[in-house]
């Protein structure tokens, strides 16, 4: 039989590790939503003395790569310091899984984001974050580094898919270098919107295409 994933991915998919909720977690986060596709929730328990992750659990409503990445990320993160855990990248998770298909990056990156957001949630709750900054083009650009170009499996900023960013009066305009009727145009538009519209001072996100 010929399956679309590596043996390690299939193993984690069939027997995901650290599944479930943590009662009274120190931090939790949900990335994605059922409306836009996959979704993953991450729960963490922090050892405040060592500043490390004592326990990490996840739940997934998603495809095989989403489930497998959730599983591997909990294994990679457990016992790490908060800063080290925040720096785990999608590439590292993918490598640990024996490689993920590029086109699946957008589903599997959610678990990586989920872990970061859960840690951020812990830090916010414990007054460890700085105050809100106004959104600038650079902030948008940083956020868009989390949107994956399905053509390459790399982010849309690095692959020059984002041609222009404008921020004005609570509206962000992003110009994407794809024809409007491209196979992945709708997908990219939705992912860009999703990343930007949660910024505290942004009311509207406009995604335009070059053709």
């Amino acid at each position: 039989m010929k399956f679309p994933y590596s043996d390690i991915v299939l193993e984690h998919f069939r027997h995901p590790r650290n599944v479930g909720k943590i009662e009274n977690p120190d931090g939790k986060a949900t990335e994605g939503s059922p409306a836009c596709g996959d979704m993953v929730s991450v729960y963490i328990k922090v050892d405040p003395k060592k500043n490390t992750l004592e326990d990490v659990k996840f739940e997934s409503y998603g495809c095989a790569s989403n489930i497998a990445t959730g599983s591997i990320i909990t294994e990679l993160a457990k016992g790490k310091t908060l800063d080290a855990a925040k720096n785990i990248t999608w590439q590292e998770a993918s490598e640990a899984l024996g490689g993920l298909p590029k086109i699946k990056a957008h589903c599997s990156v959610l678990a990586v984001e989920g872990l970061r957001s859960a840690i951020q949630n812990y830090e916010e709750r414990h007054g460890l974050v700085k105050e809100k900054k106004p959104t600038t083009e650079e902030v948008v650009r940083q956020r868009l580094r989390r949107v994956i170009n399905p053509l390459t499996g790399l982010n849309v900023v690095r692959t020059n898919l984002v041609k222009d960013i404008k921020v004005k009066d609570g509206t962000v305009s992003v110009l994407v270098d794809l024809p409007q009727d491209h196979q992945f145009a709708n997908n990219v538009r939705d992912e860009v919107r999703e990343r930007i519209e949660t910024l505290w001072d942004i009311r509207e996100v406009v995604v335009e295409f070059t053709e």
Partner: protein
Amino acid sequence: MKTADKIIYLDNAAATRLDERVLEAMRPYLFDTYAVATSEFGYSQGIEAREALDEARTALANALGAAPEEFIFTSGSTESSNIALKGVALALGKQKGKHIIVSKIEDFPVLHSAQALEKQGFRVTYLEVDGEGFVNIDQLRDSITNETVLVSIQHANQEIGTIQDIEAIGCICREKEVLFHTDATHTFKRVPLDVKKTAVDLVTVSAHTIHGPKGTGGLYVRQGTQIAKWMDGGFQEFNLRAGLENIPGAVGFAKAVQLVTTEEIGRFQDMRDRLIDGMLAEIPHSTLNGPRHKRLPQNANITFHFVEGESITLHLDMRGFAVSTGSACFSRSLEASHVISGIGGDHERAHGSIRFTFGRYNTMDDVDAVVQALAEIVEELRSISPLGKSEEKEED
């Protein structure tokens, strides 16, 4: 990795296993009578090839209640629907008008041909459908204008199996003097269609859904229909479709048509009903997509809420079952099914939708096995899903 010992294939709407008897019928035209179909003044092998092609054409035309001159062979339903939409647009666009009407849940050959015509200045009306996928007949009647050159509405839907009332649609088109094309890819030899009784001018059919060879399809073109040739080459297929005739394909297609029996269709229907009843009874929070009646006999489509379709298909694959899903994660464009959203379903409904389609080699045991497997898989996936748990409590 442990693998399944037996494959239970339930994706017959996508492709079917070739019937050995079809292959036997094709064999002589691959190895013995492989010549090009010549005119009646050609050489022996070419004349024999011509006769085989004519015979196959007659069989296909008969199956639709048409005359042989009204049926052309193509490379499949994609090409047939392209010829229908673009051919009519090219023939009538300048003289009559630039408006066509399709339903919003058409399969891609029709939908994307319509979009391609839009780029060339045509106006396209995408008809709404109701919650079960039926087009709004009143909206159709109201949408037809003096500039409308073609209405293209599928006979049945590829995903949710809805059978449209093409008799009524044909009557409206005839009355308003507009050409009517229907994509019958999934109804051909499954649901009756006779062009003598139904006012349809163009019909797309394909061999790949009825255990015939891939790469072979056809288009019924009612005598006198104004349609332009747009793929240029030789004068084959009544000068409508250029290219060396695929005689083994045509012969195989005719054989595949001959092998379908009404008993077989009844068997599909029994399997479909048992599967739908079984799934809805065994698996909580499952919803049938499409109608219960006026549905393709070989199609079932069910959404299992709170779980994602690609995960389901992979689990099923590891147990030896082949099915398809409307989930974005499964599609080449990363977009969820336009059919499920067309019937008003949200993304989540498409995400957890699974299509089961039956063919000649399926049995009732297959149905029971897939119901059993699904019950286990869905329970397992729900146990790791963040969704559905609180909702369940609220409902109780």
